[in-house]
């Protein structure tokens, strides 16, 4: 059980230099370990904002046992975006590259944790850095403008990167399947994501879409997932690649 130890509450008018946290009473920055559910309220810039921090163990435990909470993702951004984006920018990447790669790294990291593929031999920071580096170098390879670097990378990649290399394959396959999702249309995506990803009951999903009753919604949901299944069945090679990509070395 993860214990909530402390929250930082600040007026949002005060800049938030994360990942430094503030002692509520002294208003001085302090390195505190905070864990547990997210507590945020930032409806407007004058509201109070609570920032939650996690140790490596708490982060892993939270992601493994729970649906990925926004606060966990925010914590990853506050703690690691600077370091990881810097690497991309220093290695021929643009700001947009840094943002795109970081999003992919966060998604992959969460999925790896949920599949229990994170061995924990390296810390989260080292692991994320390796994921980031590997993903970026693969992207450079894909852009076919880094043949020399490929050779250099193959020689220089250390144990941590070799550890993650088997986890990250087939980025393109993921992208193609996501394109399939887009072909389903907005309603299908909304229903399927609400049901399978957000784990919402049909009653709540009904309030999000304009259907007469739950049975109609249930039929629609079936048609949506069936359509996607048929798309995947029509391209077994892609389906296999996508399956491998999300298996993270399984």
């Amino acid at each position, binding site marked *: 059980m993860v214990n909530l130890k402390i929250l930082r509450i600040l007026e949002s008018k005060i800049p938030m230099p994360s990942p430094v946290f503030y002692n509520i009473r002294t208003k001085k920055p302090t390195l505190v370990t905070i864990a547990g559910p997210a507590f945020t309220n930032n409806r407007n810039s004058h509201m109070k904002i609570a920032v939650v921090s996690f140790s490596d163990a708490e982060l892993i435990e939270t992601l493994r046992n729970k649906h990925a909470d*926004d606060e966990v993702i925010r914590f990853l951004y506050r703690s690691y975006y600077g370091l990881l984006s810097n690497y991309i920018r220093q290695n021929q990447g643009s700001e947009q590259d840094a943002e795109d790669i970081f999003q992919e790294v966060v998604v992959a990291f969460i999925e790896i944790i949920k599949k229990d593929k994170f061995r924990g031999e390296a810390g989260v920071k080292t692991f994320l850095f390796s994921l980031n580096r590997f993903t970026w170098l693969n992207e450079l390879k894909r852009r076919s403008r880094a043949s020399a670097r490929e050779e250099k990378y193959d020689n220089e990649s250390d144990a941590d990167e070799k550890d993650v290399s088997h986890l990250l394959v087939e980025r393109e396959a993921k992208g193609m399947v996501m394109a399939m999702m887009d072909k389903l249309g907005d309603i299908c995506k909304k229903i399927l994501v609400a049901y*399978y990803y957000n784990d919402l009951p049909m009653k709540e999903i009904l309030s999000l879409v304009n259907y007469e009753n739950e049975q109609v919604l249930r039929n629609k949901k079936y048609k949506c997932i069936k359509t996607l*299944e048929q798309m995947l069945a029509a391209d077994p090679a892609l389906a296999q690649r996508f399956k491998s990509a999300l298996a993270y070395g399984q």
Partner: protein
Amino acid sequence: MDNSEQPGEKIVQYLDGELTGQELRNFESELAANPALQAELDNMDLARTAVMHYGLKQQVAVVHQTMMTELRKESATQGRGKVVPLFRTVLKVAAALFIGGLLYGAYQYTTTTPSSFVKDNYQPYTVSAERGEASKSAIETAYINNDFKGTITTFEKTATPTVKEQFLAAQAYLGNHQPAKAITAFSAVLANQGAAYKDDAEYYLADAYIQNGQPAKAKPLLVKIHNDADHLYHSKVTRWTLVKVDILIFKSGN
């Protein structure tokens, strides 16, 4: 819904955990015996995985937008934070220097008086032995013995004193705190064209003017000495000496 959709619906119900009891057992038996059904289940499971992946990507993308706004704002704030403290530090140093300068100026203004100026700048003239000089005059002898009064008395009794005797008498007046008479004597020395004691007389005349409360008259002499690198007393008249004279002029109201 027609009958052809039934197996597919069952698969989804199975995936969603909605089959229970006998219905679940029947489906699992059919699954074990029907590879096509198993393949369809696998694809349906993959479709569900795709939805989960899509959902996570969407969630991260939404958080990404808000976090990038926050991080950019923070980055801008930190940038400003570096400039503002530096600016503040420079201002503090400038203010400290300004206040220090003011205090020092006030101190100098208060402590600069004719007597303090003379104390800092006046040194009694020392007579040097002149090559081939046969004998010393009474005035010179009295001056060498630091007998300023004797020097003055003898000088005042001398009808036609030499330039050197005039100069030593002027020094004796200055040493005896009679600056007005020193001014007259030094002026007489300077009135002699090509006088040997010209540089000395200019410097000490300026001192005499200061002692006599006439700094405005001392200023041109001191400026001349300061501007003339070959003047014997050039090194004794610095910019700061001139500033002090200006202070004396300001205080005297001349």
